[in-house]
């Protein structure tokens, strides 16, 4: 189903979807751009999690069993709260059909969730202090840095462009 491109670009559906069956996909255009330069954002409603999201969540949950020094070099185990934040994000990102690629714990209790589409990659970081970071690169070039809260739309544009 292709919606008209005067819908608002966002990662939350602003459409009443109560009567829509599972797996319906909306294509949301950015009304701030001309039709020839429309940014397409894909939004999935009422669907079960994708297989790739499920795999990411399973892997993220497995990090709950890590102990401090899990890498034998003094790495701090991620907290359950931080893992749950990453899982919430994965569920959210799955609604936009973002291409999950990888997730891993970091050495200081952070977690990264990575996306990959061709030469484009993005990494969402969940820091142990509750802050987030987002980095996007195309090949060797860093395209943009920011936070998930402020730059999620940029991530959607970057991946879907």
């Amino acid at each position, binding site marked *: 189903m292709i919606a008209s491109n005067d819908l608002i670009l966002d990662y939350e559906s602003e459409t009443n979807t109560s009567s829509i069956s599972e797996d319906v996909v909306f294509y949301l255009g950015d009304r701030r751009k001309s039709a020839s330069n429309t940014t397409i954002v894909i939004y999935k409603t009422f669907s079960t999690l994708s297989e790739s999201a499920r795999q990411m969540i399973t892997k993220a949950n497995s990090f709950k069993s890590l102990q401090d020094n*899990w*890498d*034998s*070099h*003094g*790495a*701090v185990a991620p907290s359950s709260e931080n893992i749950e934040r990453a899982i919430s994000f994965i569920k959210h990102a799955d609604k936009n059909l973002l291409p999950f*690629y*990888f997730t*891993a*714990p*970091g*050495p*200081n209790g*952070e977690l*990264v969730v*990575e996306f990959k589409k061709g030469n484009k990659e993005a*990494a969402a*970081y969940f820091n142990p202090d509750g802050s987030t*970071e987002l*980095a996007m*690169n195309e*090949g*060797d070039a*860093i395209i943009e*840095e920011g936070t998930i809260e402020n730059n999620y739309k940029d991530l959607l544009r970057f991946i879907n462009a």
Partner: protein
Amino acid sequence: MRRVLFDIVDPLYVRPDQTVTSVAFLPRRIEGALEVGLSVEISRLTTYAQSIRNIQKFRLYALKAGYVSQINLDCIHDPLVDNGAHALIIGEIKKSKAKQLSLGATRVQYP
């Protein structure tokens, strides 16, 4: 002289395509303070076996020192009593810089 640096990583940092994730290159916070630099080894002063010690547990990645300089970080030789090959990658290593380091790292297979 072209130097190659070895970095030893946990398998959890290895991505499906055998590249390494950026978090492997984040400085560690030790007792509240960030470590001075990323510990690596100078390849010509060590061997795969000496570097990795436990091939079941770790994976070895190589970074060219020239690449490290290219992304505005420095490498310094920092020999330890028990490891003459030890070196440090120093500079401000934030997430994007860690990502660039990961992009320059290539897997070294067991010889």
